[in-house]
């Protein structure tokens, strides 16, 4: 599985992407393990309590997890996960 980071998330992770060999079963497990790796700023960006923060956009293969199963979205080894803070423009 590949996890890609964008905008301010890169300042929390210090890297633009990470390959994960043992794909976790679902989004909650993935984010929990990434929060353990990257620390408090990352954790605050992605979680609001034990829920997904409303100010984070997470795509699995291009689909926003809010249109999938949120934190319960199952994951597999071939998935590409993209993590964005809220961004905008036009």
């Amino acid at each position, binding site marked *: 599985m590949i996890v890609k980071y*964008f*905008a301010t998330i890169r300042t929390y992770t210090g890297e633009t992407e990470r390959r994960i060999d043992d794909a976790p079963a679902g989004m909650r497990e993935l984010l929990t393990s990434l929060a353990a790796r990257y620390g408090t700023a990352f954790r605050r960006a992605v979680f609001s309590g034990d829920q997904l923060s409303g100010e984070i*956009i997470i795509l699995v293969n291009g689909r*926003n997890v809010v249109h999938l199963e949120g934190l319960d979205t199952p994951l597999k080894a071939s998935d590409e996960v993209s993590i*964005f803070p*809220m961004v*905008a*423009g036009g």
Partner: protein
Amino acid sequence: MFGWTGTILRVDLTKGKVSREATDPQLARDYLGARGLGGHIVRSEVDPKTDALGADNKIVFAPGPLTGTFAPSAGRFDVVTKGPLNGVLAASNSGGTFGPELKYAGYDALIIEGKSAKPVYLWIKDDEVEIRDAAALWGHTTPDATDLVRAETDEDAKVSCIGPAGEHLSPISNIMNEMHRAAGRTGVGAVMGSKNIKAVAVLGSGAVKVADPEGFKAAVMKARQMIQAHPVGGSGLKAYGTDVLVNILNQTGALPTRNFQDGYFPTADKTGGESLAAKQLIRPKGCFSCIISCGRVTKVDSPDYKGIGEGPEYETAWAFGADCGIDDLDAITKANFLCNEYGMDTISLGSTIACAMELFERGIITTKDTDGVQLTFGNTAAMVEMVEKAGRGEGFGAKLAQGSYRLADSYGHPEYSMTCKKQEMPAYDPRGVQGIGLNYATGNRGGCHVRGYTIAIEVLQNGAVMDPHVTDDKAGLGVTFQDLTAALDSSGACLFATFGIGGAELTEMLAALTGVDYTLDEFMRIGERIWNQERLWNLEAGFTSADDTLPRRLLTEPIKTGPSKGHISHLDDMLPEYYQLRGWDEKGVPGKAKLKELTLN
């Protein structure tokens, strides 16, 4: 009047005559200003079938009631005219400081009509208005012309001018304000060129009168705090600019690539806002009274593309980037600088070069047409060279400067022009994001994203979130966004203020400023009135429901790679409902009841 100055300035270039008239308070109330009031003036005074580049067309510069106040991001104005690119009721919105200055000089609108026999510019200093000789300015780029005008008038004058592209009547030319801010789309620069007017310089010493100073201050402070607290308005746009969108659109599979042949560009990250901030950003920059500061002051060091200027915005980074198959940010930024200097629309020119690249790769045009240039996708040097040529109107550049529809049509292949109503679409693929396709197809000025930015909900999760791949409820979303934006544009605020505040806050500020008891319902009704006003003009100009469509490619050819692989646009699932919600018949004509309700004829 409060909020409005109460005066409209009229300059007849044929007769060399300057006059003033009172702003009609009822029209001001019903249309606010800028796009709405300017549109009303043009629709009342110009025949929709007139030649956009003829003496009978008029061009209106109009700020809104909020323009020039300390409301957040309230420095906007619109240039309204019959658009030369496609004949629509064109309104080009711009930031900078020109709009507020026109207000301080005492004007709700400046109407320029007729045609001068020789090049001139306009110098407005409060009540003193002069039509001056511009022989020495003609041919100059926008930064040079701005400097020359300031040297002849006042170093603090705010200057709105055209570059060489407007002079050679390119229908994709801009009017540039203070060198770097564009009144873009629809080719408004060519209208100035056709009238032989190179620039308008203005300096004002007045102020905007406020009906309820305490109430206005409270409403403004609340709005400012909301923007400040918003992750995008408060910090995101300042840090990365609008170009931060490259990656999220690409990862969604909706970044149009190689003239919309695909929706995913593998190396797009090299052209995104993160790369721009790391490589080129000198500092963020805001327009008048703006705490968001999405502007980019940038520098390119690489020898081939060296320069200092402003940009690129997301749309520009896409148009000269993924759409041309290019991932060299230095070349993209150089192309942006050149467009600003020549006064050209970056979206339209980038998309036109992408169209030419497709024509070239398909063998429809060859090096015989392109002045010997191998115009293939990904050819960075060729892209920059073509921008220069188009700016000067030289060789193949003269064809590019006509926009992609006229270019592709001249070779018998209009289907490769990625346009709606002949205007180039911006950087969101309607096959990957359904609602934006409906917005392009129904856009009153053609392919355009800033008049119904459904992306905010379909991709960016701003306030609410809807699945980009479904068509359900997208007609309603489009109508609401189009009406809200029409009213917002006409108020004088920047669209990006909505990354923090909404219609309720804008209404509150407008009511306290003007003393008019506006409600949110009335604000939205004003937007609907303006949208229908533009629709009526377009119908009178000869557009029909057949023009409310997308290029055939988007309706029939699925995206080939990336996250939206296999998707096409389902416009037909949304359009009938859209007409119905608008109160229009099945041919897209507003019904009598709707017009009566909106007090339109």
